[in-house]
């Protein structure tokens, strides 16, 4: 007895922001994958951005709280690894939100093979738009981000890594 359609639930869960990057929600980020009904059991299928992403537990709790608001309490969260999450799933509109928030969005499709050879990419500063930037560290404030700095406006900024 599906009281709520998949669309309605997606719509409701789109109110859940990513705990680390509150300007985009878990659908825009591609974490929420599917909603399945089996009798009164509602299964929410999610996929982690990175294997050890500590935000996943918070997201699971947020989903349960949100569903409880509309009376759905028989909830199972299913974590899937396939298809593997990729930054390619982040829409252009969501990328623009990241940029406005001060995070340089992933700038190309899927993983760059140059990564193996130690080449860093030319990135636009999200503050001033200058391309005169350099990488400080491949690992930033969260697993999904690298740390850069702008050599013109001198501001450091996060870059959402392509995987």
């Amino acid at each position, binding site marked *: 007895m599906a009281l709520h359609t998949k669309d309605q639930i997606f719509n409701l869960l789109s109110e859940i922001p990513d705990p680390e990057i509150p300007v985009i929600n878990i659908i825009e980020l591609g974490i929420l994958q599917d909603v399945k009904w089996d009798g009164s059991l509602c299964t929410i299928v999610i996929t982690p951005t990175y294997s050890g992403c500590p935000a996943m537990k918070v997201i699971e709790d947020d989903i349960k709280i949100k569903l409880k608001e509309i009376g759905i309490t028989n909830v199972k969260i299913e974590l899937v690894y396939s298809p593997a999450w990729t930054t390619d799933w982040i829409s252009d509109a969501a990328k623009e939100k990241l940029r406005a928030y001060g995070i340089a969005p992933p700038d190309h499709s899927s993983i760059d093979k140059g990564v193996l050879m130690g080449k860093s990419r030319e990135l636009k500063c999200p503050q001033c738009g200058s391309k005169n930037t350099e990488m400080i560290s491949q690992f930033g404030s969260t697993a999904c981000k690298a740390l850069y700095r702008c050599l013109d406006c001198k501001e450091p900024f996060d870059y959402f890594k392509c*995987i």
Partner: protein
Amino acid sequence: MNLQEAKFEYLLRLGDSSLIIGHRLSEWCGHGPILEEDIALINIALDFVGNASALLTYAAQVEGKGRTEDDLAYLRSEREYRNLLLTEQPNGDYAVTIARQFLYDVYTFFLYEELKTSKDETIAAIAVKSHKEITYHLRHTTEWMYRLGDGTEESHKRMQTALNDLWMYTPDLFDMNEVDAILINEGIAVDLNKVKEAWEKRVREVISEAKLEIPAANIKQKGSREGRHSEHLGFLLAEMQYIPRSYPNANW
């Protein structure tokens, strides 16, 4: 040994290695030589622990005795652990940590590349996901190999010493037994001879570009497949398992 037992054993090898090297890296938290490196190592540690969680969850499921990933992580002693000897070696100075991570990252880069096409769907899915992360780990450690190996006289000396000291644990990476034979036959596991070839080529390239020397292979340590470890693993587990062993079934 049947297929199910072989698969359980194989998943422990993969999962335990990730868990133990992840725990080692987490020991750097708050002690990194510079802030960026502290953050980098902890990010990498998280990837490993996340990967271990996926693999040990699946291992428990394959075993089918009602154990959970936490039971496997916290309630086994060192002889039951199947992690590679290399992964349990202490952090030492930064050169030792980088040398250990580099040798292991090249290994997992080629191993997981092959596992992506494993006939076991869950192993393949975990491999596809982890390989993306491993690519970043390898880039990070490769850069540090160059920086320290081709750096100052002091950094060069320390990097060479670290490689010399850890080299004896590398034959353990490619050790195979009945488990491998059963699973290779089923298209689930990887023939480690193939990984070894790619590993040696890449490791030699980077060591030479970093102006370092390939260590002499005088001593060869093996034993992780049978649960024979160096003395370091017991101390690591004593710390890692302290809370769940002292307060069984504690929740928070």
